């Protein structure tokens, strides 16, 4: 079988647009709008009806989110960078929602390098601004000639690779998650068709499997043994599904539920941790740039 992993779907193409040439509107942008809608809705919901005393559970959550964000930024950068709290919060929440939206079967905007590159470029501008502000434009430029002028191209490259590496780190992790999910899904589809092709080839085989499963399950339950009981349930389920397949409900049954287990790591954990890493790097780079 063939497994196909594509980039963002192109929704519209405009030829010969002035200045830009060929313009392709992709899924990334529309999915990003959806993400923005979700976040903005959450913001409006959480930010409405706030009171000073006798707060609701919703407000407690809102305040907890706010204080943990402030604590994160201050912990990494100190209190003099409070004006970057909104930016870092935005990047974090957009990243998390974008990463997790793939769980709903929607194209994840962060699976497009351009999304992360956009964030990383904004961060890069801030880093450069702080570097110039901290030491002056001349010494900033002179810094590229350190320790010897021949190394200037390498210095420029290393400067430019800061945003590239930030973007690629995030993008690579999300992409790998997407790729692995696709592979697991394809593998389970193949396994499913093989298994149920075998079991569901004739109705009696399926029924016998289910019956054996039920028997094992009952025995295991009576004898209070876990292994036969679990095995019995699995066999019963397999037999029942094989019977269904034989009767015409042909579906890759193994892809139901099972991909959720690796998705716990590849989507949930990786999605949250990459957002966290991106924001941590943002804070540290800006702090470092301002500190020199």
């Amino acid at each position, binding site marked *: 079988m063939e497994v196909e992993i594509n980039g963002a779907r192109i929704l519209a193409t405009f030829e010969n647009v002035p200045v830009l040439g060929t313009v392709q509107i992709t899924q990334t942008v529309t999915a990003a709008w959806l993400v923005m809608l979700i976040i903005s809705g959450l913001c409006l919901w959480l*930010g409405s009806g706030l009171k000073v005393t006798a707060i609701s559970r919703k407000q407690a959550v809102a305040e907890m989110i706010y204080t943990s964000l402030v604590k994160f930024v201050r912990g990494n950068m100190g209190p003099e960078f409070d004006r970057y709290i*909104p930016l870092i919060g935005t990047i974090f929440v957009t990243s998390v929602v974008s990463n997790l939206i793939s769980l709903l079967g929607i194209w994840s905007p962060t699976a497009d390098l351009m999304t992360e590159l956009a964030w990383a470029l904004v961060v890069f501008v801030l880093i450069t601004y702080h570097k110039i502000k901290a030491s002056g434009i001349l010494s900033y430029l002179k810094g590229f000639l350190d320790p010897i002028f021949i190394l200037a191209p390498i210095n420029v490259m290393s400067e430019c690779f800061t945003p590239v590496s930030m973007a690629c780190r995030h993008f690579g992790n999300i992409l790998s998650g997407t790729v692995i999910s696709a592979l697991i899904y394809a593998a389970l589809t193949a396994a499913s068709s093989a298994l149920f092709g075998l079991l569901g080839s004739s109705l009696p085989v399926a029924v016998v499997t289910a019956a054996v499963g039920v028997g094992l399950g009952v025995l295991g339950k009576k004898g209070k043994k876990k292994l036969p009981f679990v095995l019995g349930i699995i066999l019963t389920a397999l037999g029942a599904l094989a019977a269904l397949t034989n009767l015409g409900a042909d579906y890759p049954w193994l892809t139901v539920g099972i991909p959720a287990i690796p998705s716990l790591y590849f989507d949930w954990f990786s999605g949250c941790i990459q957002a966290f890493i991106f924001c941590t790097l943002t804070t540290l780079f800006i702090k470092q740039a301002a500190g020199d």
Partner: protein
Amino acid sequence: MDTLYQSLVTVNPVTLIAMICNLFIQLYILKRFFLDKVKAILDQRRDAADRQIADAEAAKSQAISMKQTYEQNMRQAKAKADELLQSAQKTATARSEEIIRQAQQQATQMRAKASSDIALEKKKAINDAKNEISDLAMAIAGKVVARELTDADQSRLIDSFLDELGDGL
């Protein structure tokens, strides 16, 4: 129509620009509708707490000053009461002494008056006696003049005179 896909890793400037714009729009929305509002509420709460603490401290210092004033007043009142008591005692002592002195004086005066009265009475009595004696002497002289007295009569007269005199003395 076939669905078209981008290649997995590609550079699309339009997407890039759009995502930068999206970031700033999202930034504005998050700041305007969430962060600023929560911040305002937290600031308000902190101000309220600060105000309450300040109020409590003001009330405490006020209470302390009131207590001091009260204690001072109490001390003053006590001092005044002591003073009053002392002066009252002094007055009372002076008054009692005065009364005793007056009584003594009065008694002395009364005694003096009594003794002077007694002396006067005595003098008066003596004067009366003298008058009587002289009257008697006059009477006796009259009687002597009226008839010739015998020796016996004379002695009897003298005796009776002396008796009368003795009674008067």
